[in-house]
């Protein structure tokens, strides 16, 4: 298992290498280049040249690329063109919020989606089944930002059950170590700070969870239906095992294989999809920052973001592969 993980991590290197080339080419082909973004259309040729020089844009491309990779390896992503701060610093401050939000959404989607999908399959054709199939169709076609607005209007603004914006109440004055607010609260034993951070995660978490929840319900349902028809489930029933054993050991363990794959793909997508939700809830994650970076062509920030997404995507999928081989001995690597 250990060698498998190391091998998979090594496979990541050429992937990232290829991605870095793609990024590099793409950014240098942007219309106008970064200097336009900084100076707007009114920049004089002199001021443009100055910017180009200070950013190192006049060097030959291979040298620029070499420098780019070297800095990437050192985790030095450069300075944001618009905020003038280190991209790494910006990320360390903002990314944890997005990660917390994504994890919350995945917990909701998995925690609700798998049981619901299982029940729908088990009671095929029942009202519960029809409702979950219909609901999951609805879940995939409501835009996230719209759902976010609706949830906010009802549960935060009208009923006041949840906070409307932000990641944590400023009055709590919490200590921050990692910028993962929930984790910080637990580390410093400031329980109310952790609880408040979780409270702030609920509504945006639900909004963000809607699409993966719908997908997980459908995949689980289809997969469980297939497994229920398998001979070994009949064998398990013929042994008189309890419903619980049949469900856990015989149905779900087999049905989870396709679900695990989809969870891996969904997590990666969620990270990049968190942007809209964060905007609605003024949740200070990476979302707004990336949105500005896109409109400003803040290329160090964009590059850093894309690389991080790629690494996270690869790591999540590695996790999926590992759990896959833990579940299924037929694909197990020795």
């Amino acid at each position: 298992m250990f060698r498998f993980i190391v091998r998979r991590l090594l496979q990541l290197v050429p992937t990232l290498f290829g991605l870095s080339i793609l990024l590099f080419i793409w950014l240098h082909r942007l219309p106008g280049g970064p200097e336009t973004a900084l100076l707007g259309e009114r920049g004089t040729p002199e001021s443009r040249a100055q910017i180009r020089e200070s950013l190192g844009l006049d060097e030959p491309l291979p040298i620029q690329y070499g420098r780019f990779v070297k800095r990437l390896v050192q985790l030095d992503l450069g300075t944001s063109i618009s905020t003038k701060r280190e991209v790494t610093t910006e990320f360390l401050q903002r990314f944890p919020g997005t990660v917390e939000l994504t994890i919350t959404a995945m917990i909701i989607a998995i925690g609700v989606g798998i049981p619901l999908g299982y029940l729908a399959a088990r009671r095929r054709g029942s009202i519960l089944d029809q409702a979950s199939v219909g609901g999951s169709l609805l879940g995939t076609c409501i835009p996230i930002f719209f759902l976010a607005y609706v949830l906010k209007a009802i549960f935060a603004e009208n009923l006041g059950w949840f906070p409307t914006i932000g990641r944590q109440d400023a009055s709590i004055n919490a200590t921050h170590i990692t910028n993962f607010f929930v984790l910080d609260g637990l580390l410093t034993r400031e329980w109310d700070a952790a609880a408040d951070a979780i409270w702030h995660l609920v509504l945006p978490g639900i909004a963000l969870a809607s699409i993966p929840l719908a997908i997980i319900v459908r995949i689980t349902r289809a997969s469980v239906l297939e497994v229920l028809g398998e001979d070994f489930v009949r064998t398990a029933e013929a042994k008189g095992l309890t419903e619980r054993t049949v469900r856990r050991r015989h149905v779900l363990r087999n049905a989870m294989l396709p679900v695990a794959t989809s969870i891996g793909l969904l997590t990666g997508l969620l990270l990049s999809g968190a942007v809209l939700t964060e905007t609605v809830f003024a949740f200070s994650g990476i979302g707004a920052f990336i949105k500005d970076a896109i409109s400003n062509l803040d290329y160090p920030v964009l590059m850093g973001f894309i690389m991080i997404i790629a690494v996270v995507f690869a790591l999540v999928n590695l996790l999926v592969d590992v759990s896959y081989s833990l579940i299924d001995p037929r694909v197990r690597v020795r």
Partner: protein
Amino acid sequence: MPLLDVRDLSVTFARRGQRTVHAVDGVSFSVDAGEVVGLVGESGCGKSVTSLALMGLLPRQRGVRVGGSADFDGTDLLKLDPRSMRDVRGRDIAMIFQDPLSSLNPVVPIGIQVTEVLVRHRGMSGDAARKEAAELLDRVGIPDPTRRLKEYPHQLSGGMRQRALIAMAVACRPRLLIADEPTTALDVTIQAQILELLKELVRDSGTALIMITHDLGVVAGMCDTINVLYAGRVVETARRKELFAGRRHPYTVGLLASIPRLDAGRGEKLTPIRGSVRDVLPWTEGCAFAPRCDRRTEACVGEPPAMTPTHTGHEFRCVNPFPLSQPEEARV
């Protein structure tokens, strides 16, 4: 009193937009303690559905209707609530299925698939259960059982898998074992070994066995009593000796003639039964075998033939049966 007494068992599948299927249409037979009883018939005659109905394993859906009774040691299996049926299954009645590979869970080690029965019905746990599981594997002829416990189904050969399934079935010393075509998916040489193993197990433990097969030849060697099924009904019932001394029902005769036999003389031809299983008359309109039967008379259609009892207990459902005295060769 028999251990299991099945009376007028019927199973119908009604699907919206489809014709209602009478998969089992009034089957009656009984099994004494320790007896080996054969259910024989062509594909689709309702053998598997009969066994699944007895086990309470038919799909739980609207449109599946079960009728009749199945008295097992004083309780009607068909009326038992699902929870009590779970207690009976695996402990008092166990089952072995046709395809050993697909009947085993691919992602769970063999050991756990054996011990889970012991845990469920015999209250064993941990080392005791593992030790007992190893002994069970040893008893069904799996070498190196302790190592095999940790292996997965795909690491075992076909015959070994069926042995493992048999071990799970006999783990709680059930009083009744149902084997639904346990050798059909196996190589010929392995088939004989598995049958031998089953024979030995039921002889040593006193377990009764319902042996389901389409191969009358298999039944020949091991069953005490044989029930021949056609289109969801029993058409002939006899003790082995009586049946092989004189088959009365034309379908039984045809069934035996259509099967290759090791003891068949040179030059004896195989004669398949004319037509196909799909050419049936509904039992309500007469003998279901009539469209394929060479001995059909006018009396065969109109109303369903009843079971004709004889003083030996040999029964057949036919209005124009082969006479008892006729020599074997002339019949086939």
